[in-house]
């Protein structure tokens, strides 16, 4: 299972509304609309790189995990991390090279 990293919180500007998050990603200049668990994943990953299983455990500490329609939590987290990596909000280690723009 790959290990994922996230760039520092200062790279993201977000506004919560109606249970969703409008997020501006400074290094890419791209705006995303995030539904749970995506924002929670970014926040938890800020505590250090993790693979999906580790992250699922970390999230279980700070959140009461609702069941993912019976699917294994780590599998759901892995899918969400893949989606976040595709838009560049997280990266598979070894590294995040993006400096904070501007």
């Amino acid at each position: 299972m790959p290990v994922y990293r996230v760039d520092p919180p200062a790279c993201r500007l977000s506004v919560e509304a109606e249970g969703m998050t409008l997020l501006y990603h400074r290094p890419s200049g791209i705006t995303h609309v995030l539904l749970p668990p995506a924002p929670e994943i970014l926040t938890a990953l800020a505590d250090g790189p993790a693979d999906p299983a580790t992250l699922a455990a970390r999230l279980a500490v700070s959140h009461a995990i609702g069941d993912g329609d019976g699917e294994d939590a780590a599998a759901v987290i892995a899918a969400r991390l893949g989606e976040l990596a595709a838009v560049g909000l997280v990266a598979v280690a070894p590294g995040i090279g993006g400096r904070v723009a501007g």
Partner: protein
Amino acid sequence: MRHAFSVRIGPVGFRVGSAWPQPIAAMRRLYAGYPPPRDGIADFTVRLEPTRPWRRWLRPSAMVRGDFTLPDAAPLPLAQGLLAAEMGMNLQMALGARRWLLLHASCVERDGRALLMSGHSGAGKSTLSALLGERGWRLLGDEFALLDPASGVIHPFPRPVSLKNEAIAVMAAEVAADRLGPLIPGTPKGDIRHLRPAADALARMDEPATPAMLLFPRFGASADVRPMGAIETFVRLTQASTNYVVLGEAGFAALTGLVRGVPAMAIDYPDTAAAIDLVERLWAETAR
């Protein structure tokens, strides 16, 4: 270029050059009373040029070029030169505006507060804003609303209103004849006639207004109102803006500020009379 005309519409200065005299003469009449660009320097340049040298005389057709262009634009017959100039100016705003978040929306003002109406072309927002402009509202613009990222106010862009097909007769019944430009038949969008904004709207074109209500009007079977949440409004407005992405963080802050501060509603209306009643009622209830 042989023929040229410069004009300022709200905060934006344009210069239009043409290989033919007709479009420029028509613009002088339509834009009579508009100021020249500030400091004598236009923000954008538009050029009306023949597609081929011989096309200047043989079945002349005007290619619209300028600072910003889109490949694949088809030329327009010279008889529609006024429309070609309008489209060229709109294209410069759509691709070149940076000082404000550009919303494809019409906008009217009352008591210093602005009503924005956004939607696809053909949703009737130009006609609605033109009608309101004759009913005690000040027309800020029928095509673009300019949202200032720093202050959150709307700057007017009162270009002549582009009336299409049935809307021409509707407005002709409302205004003096000298307010209407020439009829331009058979354009790609049907018959077009331009309506000059009221004298007050031109005189106060530098007076911004604070956004107070946001409507997404649509022709519908019967009058209907549906409140919209901040997220849906935000996403829809990013699709109604041609420069949201290029403004970066300032665009994000401006748009999140707007959708969190201003009530938004999707409205259906069967006819313009019902639309105006609906707008007046919602404005009275909402924009205190």
